[in-house]
């Protein structure tokens, strides 16, 4: 008990130190490095809170993919950083006060919980078996709150359209730059030959086991995306042109499948995103498989950035 307590105190202290480092750092690159470390520490905190699903998501997306996107942004901004005008003291003070208010509000809520704790957890667990799923988190994502999950996947596609829209008109539908990361190198080639076979298996396993154990489409898709990005950065596989029909189909196949299953629910189960009795699990697996693929491709393309050149005819 005491050892666990000391470990947790040290963990939280480390988290606060790294968070301060992110804010205090004057250089975008070191702030991003600190942010990645922060995400990994936060993943350990989620493990300590027995929220393995969230820990996996935090490590894969919060720390991994977001870190990669931020590194790309920092790289693109490097030239502008030297000449950037620093924000004035009043603005910084205002930001600090507002952030402190939010932190104080959250702390007040967390530190003084209501006397009667209202929880849907027992109800959620009691009916989980009807869906055929073993992982309550998957149950919440694909049965109880399926609508939220559907919207979340559509937002991901919109985010990609947003990134593509940053391209100048003449490069619309062209090939993403990815130049910020590109650093062809024999060691990197070795890694991108050794790791993807393993990573692809782990990614698919992560999606497959998500029905009954911690895991799921988002975590699995993120690992697939990471493998794809690795192969593209090492130059073993060229970055695809964003006007390729197959590529765009892969981006939308997940949300489209999920939406189709939801619409079929009207006809056979009496409501949007309702599953007919006995078919819940197979339908969820189909939706998750398509989503894993779409998430992998979308995150890979998000990291690759806006199109920057046209395909040579």
């Amino acid at each position: 008990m005491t050892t666990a307590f000391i470990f947790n105190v040290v963990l939280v202290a480390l988290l606060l130190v790294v968070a301060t480092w992110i804010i205090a750092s004057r250089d975008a690159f070191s702030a991003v490095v600190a942010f990645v470390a922060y995400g990994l520490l936060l993943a350990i905190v989620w493990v300590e809170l027995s929220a393995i699903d969230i820990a996996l998501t935090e490590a894969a997306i919060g720390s991994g993919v977001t870190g990669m996107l931020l590194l790309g942004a920092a790289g693109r901004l490097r030239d502008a950083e030297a000449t950037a005008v620093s924000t004035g003291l009043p603005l910084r003070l205002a930001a600090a006060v507002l952030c402190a208010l939010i932190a104080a509000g959250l702390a007040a809520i967390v530190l003084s919980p209501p006397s009667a704790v209202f929880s849907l957890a027992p109800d959620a667990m009691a009916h989980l078996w009807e869906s055929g799923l073993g992982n309550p988190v998957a149950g919440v994502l694909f049965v109880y709150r399926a609508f939220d999950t559907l919207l979340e996947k559509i937002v991901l596609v919109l985010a990609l359209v947003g990134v593509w829209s940053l391209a100048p008109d003449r490069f619309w539908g062209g090939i993403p730059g990815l130049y910020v990361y590109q650093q062809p190198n024999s060691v990197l080639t070795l890694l991108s030959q050794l790791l993807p076979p393993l990573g692809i298996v782990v990614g698919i396993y992560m999606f497959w086991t998500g029905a009954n154990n911690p895991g799921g489409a988002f975590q699995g898709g993120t690992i697939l995306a990471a493998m794809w990005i690795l192969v593209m950065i090492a130059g073993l596989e060229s970055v695809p042109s964003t006007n390729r029909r197959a590529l765009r189909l892969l981006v939308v196949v997940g949300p489209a499948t999920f939406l189709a299953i939801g619409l079929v629910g009207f006809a056979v189960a009496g409501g949007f995103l309702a599953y007919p009795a006995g078919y819940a699990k197979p339908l969820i697996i189909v939706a998750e498989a398509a989503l894993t693929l779409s998430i992998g491709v979308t995150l890979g393309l998000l990291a690759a950035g806006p199109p920057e050149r046209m395909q040579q005819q």
Partner: protein
Amino acid sequence: MTAALNIFTVLAISAGTFFFLAGTIGLLRFPDTLTRLHALTKADNVGLGLVVFGLLPLVQWPFGALKLISVWLLVQLSGSIIAQLIAVIVRQEES
């Protein structure tokens, strides 16, 4: 038998944490990037290896043990490759 295994676990993990400690001190105290990398990779390779070795008797055979060993192998792979990549950049910046 169990007592002997427990002593082995304690010894191996203590040795492993010693390497992590030494690696951390090296990371903080060594003068330049290349020597700091050297200190860091020692902690990853040997330190984690010893910790995994010490934990082997405590986990389920064979899958728990295989998982631990593959974690160690993956960290070996990523650690050594990242060290190489950083070293290449350091060399480029020096020249």
